C-alpha cells in the first residue's frame, strides 16, 4: 500500500495543520468590553420615598460607540446572574445590555411587590434614566435612550408593565409571562373569570415560596458569603421577602382556594390587563407550549391587547415553558436579536412572521436527537383558529365522583417538575370513577389542532351546588392498540360549571390551547375529571352526571401555518458540478501525451534498450543506464545476481513500470503502459498470475479473451500441449503444484505465438525432463524467426539454451554478446573448457 506518498506530502500536510491550529488559537476573540458591576439607587413606593439599591451589571456593546440598549429582566426566584449568558450574547450583537436583580431578589434590597406600578415599574423607569446618562447608549433625544426590554416570566411581565408606563421604551420581547395574573392563578375555562376560577394551588405555592427563599441582606452592606445567616424572624419565615400586604393576600386565597375581589384587584394591578391600550410598541410575545402556569392563552390576551393599539405584534409558541421542554435557547436568542435589530437598530431584514409555532421535526439523521421545525403563518389566528372543524363525539351521560378531601387526585402534570418529553410517555393518570370521557371515531386523515377546542358540557348534581361543579377538561390523543392515551403537553382546563337550583348546569368549555397533530387512525377524547393534583378541589364528596350538551367538538385549525419548505440548498446543484470539474482536471492534468513513437529503422529489431534508468523510491538505482539490443531469432539469456535489476528491466519491457530515463523499443515502437506493440510480446515475469478459483483452461481462455484478439490466433491446443497438464487442466488452479502453475504460465505467455517472448526463471519448479523439454521448445521457438529472452540463474541451463547473453550487475550492463565469445574471451588460456559459471562469477567480481 503506497498511499502514504512522499515525505514532502506529509511535511506539507503537517505544516498546513499546524498553521490552521495556530490561526485558530491566535484568531482575535471578540474583544467585548468587560461587564461592569453597578449599584443603582432608585426611589420608589406610592410616594416615591423608598430608597432601594438595585444590584446591576452593565454590558457595554461589543462594537463600541453608542448602541441601542436592552434591559434584560430575570424570572421569579432568579437574579441578574440568571440572565448573564443571554446578556453577553446580546452585548456581542452590539447592544448595551443592563441586567439587574429586581427588588427583593439577589443582592438588591427592598421587598417583592410583584411588578407593581408603584415599585418595580418605577425602578425600571429609573434604570432607563440611568441608561440615558451612559455614553455607550444611543439616544433618541436627551434623556430618552433607544431601549428595548426582554425577559421571561416575571421578567416578561415587567417588560410589558414598563412598556405601558414608560413611553421611552421602543420594543419589548416578553417571554412565558402573564396577561392577567389573577386569571393565570384562578383559571376558569367556561369564561366566568377568576372570581369563579379554580385555584392553581401547587403553582401558586411554588411561585410564592420562591420569593421567600433568600433572607434579605443588610441594606447597603453586601452580605459576606461566609457569614452565618441570622435566624429568620417570624415575619420572614411567614412572608419571605414579599411586601406584607401581598403576603396577606396570598395567605388568604391559599387558605380558602377562592379568589376574593381584593385579591383579584391586587393581582391585576401587577398585570398587563390593567393597562389596556397603553402598550403601543413593537412586541414579540414568546410563549411556551409546555406551560401549565402561564398558558398560551395568556400570550394571546397580550397579543390582542397590543394589536388593538396598532403596534406590530408577533406571537411565537416554542418548545419550552415552565413545564420544561427543549427550551430552544439559541432560537429564542435569534428571535430576540432579530426583533431588536429591526425595531431598535432599524435594520431592514426579513420581517418576523406574525405567528410561529415550534413543531416536532422528527430526529436529526445524524444524532437521532429531536429536531425542532418552525412553522410560520402570515397571520396570527388567535386561540380559536383560522378555521374550525367539527368532530363528532360519542359517549353516554356518565357519573363521576368527587372524592372526599379531593384525594386521591388525578395527575396531568407536576408543576415545577414538568412533563416528560419522551414520545409515548405520559405522566397523566386518571383515577377510576372520577372521569367521564367522550371519544371521536378514528380519524381518517391526520388532524393538526392549533388553538383551544371548545365543547359544550352539561352536568347534573343532587348535592349542595352553590359552589358550582368543578371539573377538569382534557383533550386526549388516543392511539391505536395498547398505546396509552397522550395528554398533549400535560395541560388541563379547569371549569367551574354554575348549577341552577334544579341541579343542572351547562358550560362551553375551552379546552387547553395546544398545537398537536392527531395522526390518522387516532381518536380524540374529551375527558372531564373531578380532581387534579395541581388545583384546589372541593373537599366534600359528591357525584355528578356529566354529558355532552352537543355531541361535537369544535376544533381550531390553521392551514396557513406551515413549515417553510427547506428546498435543496444551492450546494445541492453546485457540489456535483464542481466535483465533475475537479474530476476532469484530475484526469486531464495526469494525462501523458499519447503519440506513436516509431523508429522505422528498428522495425526489424525485436528489442532495443537505450540508456534505461530506474531508481527505487529511496533513490538507489535499480537499473542504471542500461543499453543492449536483441536481434531476431536469438535466444538471449539475461544474467545477473539477485538485485541486478533483471526483473525491473523486464517489467519496464512490459510497460508496468515507468522508466526514469531512457527508452525501450520493441520492433521500433517505444514501450509505454498499454502500448499496442505489447500485443506482440509474450511474458512470464516473477511467477504465474492466475485466478485461483478458475480452472487452468478457463484461466487461459479468459486471458486470451481479455486480449480481445480472435480465438483462432491463440493456438490453444499447442499451448496446452506445451503446458502438459493433462486432466489437471480442468481443475481449479488453486489445487495446482508450483511446477504446474509454472508450465501453465509459460503456456499463457506463448498464446498467440508472440514475436518476442520474455521468460523470467522459466525452469523454476520444473523437474529435469521438463527442463529439457522446455529447452527444446525455446530453441525451436526462436528458430522460426521469433525471439526469446530468458532470465535465469541456472547458468548451465543458460549455456545450453541461449546463443547470446546479457550480464547485469547492480543495475548496470557488465557485458553482452554471444555465449561462445564470452566463454572464449574469458577462457583460462587454452581457449576452451571454461564454464559460463566461472565467467559469470568473474564478471561480477565475486570470484574467490
Amino acid at each position, binding site marked *: *500500500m*503506497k*498511499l502514504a506518498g512522499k515525505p514532502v506530502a506529509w511535511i506539507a500536510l503537517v505544516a498546513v495543520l499546524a498553521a490552521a491550529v495556530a490561526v485558530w488559537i491566535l484568531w482575535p476573540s471578540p474583544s467585548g468590553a468587560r461587564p461592569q458591576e453597578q449599584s443603582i439607587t432608585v426611589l420608589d413606593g406610592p410616594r416615591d420615598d423608598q430608597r432601594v439599591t438595585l444590584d446591576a451589571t452593565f454590558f457595554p456593546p461589543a462594537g463600541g460607540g453608542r448602541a441601542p440598549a436592552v434591559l434584560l429582566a430575570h424570572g421569579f426566584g432568579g437574579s441578574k446572574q440568571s440572565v448573564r449568558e443571554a446578556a453577553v450574547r446580546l452585548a456581542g450583537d452590539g447592544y448595551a445590555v443592563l441586567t439587574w436583580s429586581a427588588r427583593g431578589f439577589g443582592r438588591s434590597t427592598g421587598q417583592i411587590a410583584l411588578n407593581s406600578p408603584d415599585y418595580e415599574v418605577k425602578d425600571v423607569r429609573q434604570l432607563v434614566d440611568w441608561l440615558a446618562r451612559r455614553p455607550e447608549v444611543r439616544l433618541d433625544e436627551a434623556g430618552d435612550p433607544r431601549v428595548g426590554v426582554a425577559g421571561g416570566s416575571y421578567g416578561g411581565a415587567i417588560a410589558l408593565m414598563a412598556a405601558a408606563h414608560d413611553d421611552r421604551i421602543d420594543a419589548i420581547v416578553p417571554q412565558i409571562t402573564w396577561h392577567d395574573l389573577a386569571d393565570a392563578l384562578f383559571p376558569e375555562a367556561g369564561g366566568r373569570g377568576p372570581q369563579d376560577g379554580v385555584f392553581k394551588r401547587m403553582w401558586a405555592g411554588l411561585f410564592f415560596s420562591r420569593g421567600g427563599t433568600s433572607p434579605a441582606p443588610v441594606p447597603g452592606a453586601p452580605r459576606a458569603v461566609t457569614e452565618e445567616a441570622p435566624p429568620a424572624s417570624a415575619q420572614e419565615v411567614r412572608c419571605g421577602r414579599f411586601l406584607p400586604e401581598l403576603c396577606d393576600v396570598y395567605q388568604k386565597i391559599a387558605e380558602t382556594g377562592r379568589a376574593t375581589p381584593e385579591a383579584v384587584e391586587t393581582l391585576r394591578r401587577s398585570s398587563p390587563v390593567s393597562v389596556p391600550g397603553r402598550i403601543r410598541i413593537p412586541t414579540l410575545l414568546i410563549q411556551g407550549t409546555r406551560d401549565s402556569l402561564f398558558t398560551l392563552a395568556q400570550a394571546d390576551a397580550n397579543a390582542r391587547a397590543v394589536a388593538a393599539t396598532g403596534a406590530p405584534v408577533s406571537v411565537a409558541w416554542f418548545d419550552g415553558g415552565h413545564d420544561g421542554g427543549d427550551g430552544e435557547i439559541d432560537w429564542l436568542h435569534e428571535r430576540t436579536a432579530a426583533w431588536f435589530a429591526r425595531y431598535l437598530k432599524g435594520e431592514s431584514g426579513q420581517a418576523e412572521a406574525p405567528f410561529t409555532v415550534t413543531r416536532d421535526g422528527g430526529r436529526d*439523521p*445524524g444524532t437521532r436527537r429531536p429536531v425542532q421545525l418552525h412553522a410560520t403563518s402570515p397571520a396570527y389566528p388567535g386561540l380559536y383558529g383560522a378555521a374550525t372543524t367539527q368532530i363528532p363525539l360519542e359517549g353516554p351521560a356518565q357519573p363521576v365522583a368527587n372524592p372526599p378531601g379531593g384525594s386521591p387526585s388525578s395527575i396531568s402534570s407536576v408543576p415545577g417538575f414538568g412533563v416528560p418529553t419522551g414520545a*409515548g410517555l405520559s405522566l397523566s393518570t386518571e383515577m377510576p370513577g372520577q372521569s367521564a370521557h367522550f371519544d371521536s371515531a378514528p380519524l381518517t386523515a*391526520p388532524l393538526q389542532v392549533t388553538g383551544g377546542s371548545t365543547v359544550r358540557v352539561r352536568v347534573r348534581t343532587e348535592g349542595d351546588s352553590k359552589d358550582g361543579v368543578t371539573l377538569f377538561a382534557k383533550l386526549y390523543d388516543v392511539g*391505536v*392498540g*395498547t398505546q396509552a392515551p397522550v395528554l398533549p403537553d400535560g395541560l388541563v382546563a379547569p371549569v367551574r360549571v354554575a348549577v341552577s337550583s334544579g341541579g343542572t348546569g351547562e358550560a362551553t368549555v375551552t379546552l387547553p390551547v395546544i398545537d398537536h397533530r392527531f395522526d*390518522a*387512525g387516532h381518536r380524540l377524547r374529551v375527558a372531564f375529571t373531578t380532581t387534579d393534583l395541581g388545583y384546589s378541589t372541593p373537599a366534600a364528596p359528591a357525584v355528578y352526571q356529566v354529558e355532552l350538551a352537543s355531541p361535537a367538538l369544535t376544533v381550531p385549525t390553521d392551514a396557513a401555518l406551515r413549515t417553510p*419548505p*427547506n428546498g*435543496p440548498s444551492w450546494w*445541492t446543484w453546485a*457540489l*456535483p458540478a464542481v*466535483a465533475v470539474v475537479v474530476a476532469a482536471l*484530475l*484526469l486531464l492534468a495526469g494525462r501523458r501525451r499519447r503519440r506513436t513513437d*516509431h523508429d522505422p529503422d528498428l522495425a526489424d529489431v525485436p528489442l532495443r534498450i537505450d540508456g534505461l534508468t530506474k531508481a527505487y523510491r529511496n533513490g538507489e538505482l535499480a537499473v542504471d543506464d542500461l543499453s543492449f539490443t536483441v536481434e531476431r531469432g536469438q535466444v538471449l539469456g539475461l544474467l545477473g545476481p539477485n538485485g541486478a535489476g533483471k526483473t525491473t528491466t523486464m517489467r519496464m519491457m*512490459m*510497460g*508496468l*513500470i*515507468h522508466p526514469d530515463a531512457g527508452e525501450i523499443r520493441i520492433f521500433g*515502437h517505444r514501450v509505454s*503502459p*498499454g*502500448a*499496442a*506493440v*505489447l*500485443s506482440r*510480446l509474450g511474458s512470464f515475469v516473477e*511467477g*504465474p*498470475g*492466475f485466478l485461483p*478459483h*478458475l480452472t487452468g483452461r478457463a484461466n487461459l481462455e*479468459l486471458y486470451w479473451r*481479455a*486480449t*480481445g*484478439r*480472435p480465438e483462432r490466433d491463440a*493456438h490453444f491446443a499447442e499451448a496446452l500441449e506445451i503446458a502438459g497438464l493433462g486432466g489437471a487442466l480442468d481443475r481449479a488452479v488453486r489445487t495446482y503444484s508450483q511446477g504446474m502453475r509454472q508450465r501453465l504460465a509459460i503456456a499463457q505467455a506463448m498464446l*498467440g*505465438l*508472440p*514475436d518476442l517472448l520474455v521468460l523470467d526463471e522459466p525452469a523454476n519448479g520444473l523437474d529435469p525432463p521438463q527442463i529439457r523439454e522446455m529447452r*527444446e*521448445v525455446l530453441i*525451436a521457438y526462436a*528458430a*522460426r*524467426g*521469433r525471439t526469446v529472452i530468458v532470465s535465469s540463474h541456472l547458468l548451465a541451463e543458460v549455456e545450453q539454451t541461449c546463443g547470446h547473453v546479457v550480464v547485469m550487475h547492480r543495475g548496470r550492463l557488465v557485458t553482452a554478446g554471444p555465449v561462445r565469445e564470452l566463454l572464449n574471451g574469458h577462457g583460462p588460456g587454452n581457449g576452451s573448457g571454461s564454464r559460463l559459471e566461472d565467467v559469470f562469477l568473474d564478471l561480477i567480481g565475486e570470484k574467490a
Partner: protein
Amino acid sequence: MSEILARADSAVEEVPETPGRGDGRAAGYLPGRTLPLSVEFARQFRRRRTLVMFGLLLALPWVLVAAFELGAGSGQPTGTLRMSDLATEGGLNFAAFALSVSASFLLVVAVALFCGDTVASEASWSSLRYLLAAPVPRDRLLRQKLVVALAYSAAAVVCLPVMALLAGTLAFGWNDVRVPGTGETVAALDVLPRFGIVVGYVLVSQFVVAALAFLLSVGTDSPLGAVGGAVGLVIVSGILQAVDALGSLREFLPTFWSTAWLDALAPQPDYGGMVKGVAVSVTYSVVLVALAFRRFRRRDVVS
C-alpha cells in the same frame, strides 16, 4: 516437443511482422476490444466471496421472516410504531424493514467488497501484470473493472429488497404500507414506484463507499485493506455525524443522508433529504473515482 510449434506455425498463415496499423500491434489486436465486460463478469462471478455474499443477501429476508414467525407468539405488542414493529404488516413493510436493517452495514460491506476487491485481488494474484501486458490499456482496465464492480454492487443492493418483498409478501401478504411513527396507511400500489426510488437512492448513497473502496483497491495489493478502509470510513463518518457541535457541516459527511430514504415512504413523501444525499454522494464518488484513475495511470505496477 518442437513439432508442436511446427504445427502451430503451419496453422498461422503468415506471422504478421508488418501490421497494418502504425503502432506495431499484433494482428487482430484492438485496444477497444480488450477485457470485454463478459470476460470480467465471468472472472468475478465464480469467486467464492461473490457467491457467498449473494447467498447471504438472498437468504437474509428468509431468516428475518423465520425470526418474525418464531417470535410472533412470545412478544407482546409494545404499542409503539417503530419500523421493526410494523415489519409483519405486509410485504412492502417487511422489505422496508429489511432494507433499513441492512443498508447501514451489510450493504456497505457488500459494496465495499465488490469495489474494493476488484483490482487489489488481481494484484495479489499477480494476474494484474499479465492483463496490463496483454496489453489492456490502464484506463480501459479500470473502466471495465469499475463497471463490473458497480454492476455487482447494484445487483447486491437490488436483490436484497426484492427478495425481501417476495419473502414478506409470501409470509405476510400483499398489504398497504403502514408508516412508522404515525401509523398511517398508504396504498401499496402508490408505494411501489416510491420503493423503486428508495432502492435507487440506497444504491446511489453507496457510491461513496464504492468509489473509496475502488480508490483504495487501486492503491494496494491487499483486498482486505481496501474493503476495510472503505468500511472504516463509513464508521468514522457515522461517529462524526453524532457530534452535534459540527452543526450543518455534518450535512457534508458521506453517511449523513443515508437514512433519508425513509422520507420517501411517508404519506407525503419528502425528497429534499434524498436530493441532498444524492448530491453529496455523487460529489465524493466522482472525485474519488477520478483520483483512482489518475493514480492507476501513473502507478508503477510492482505486484
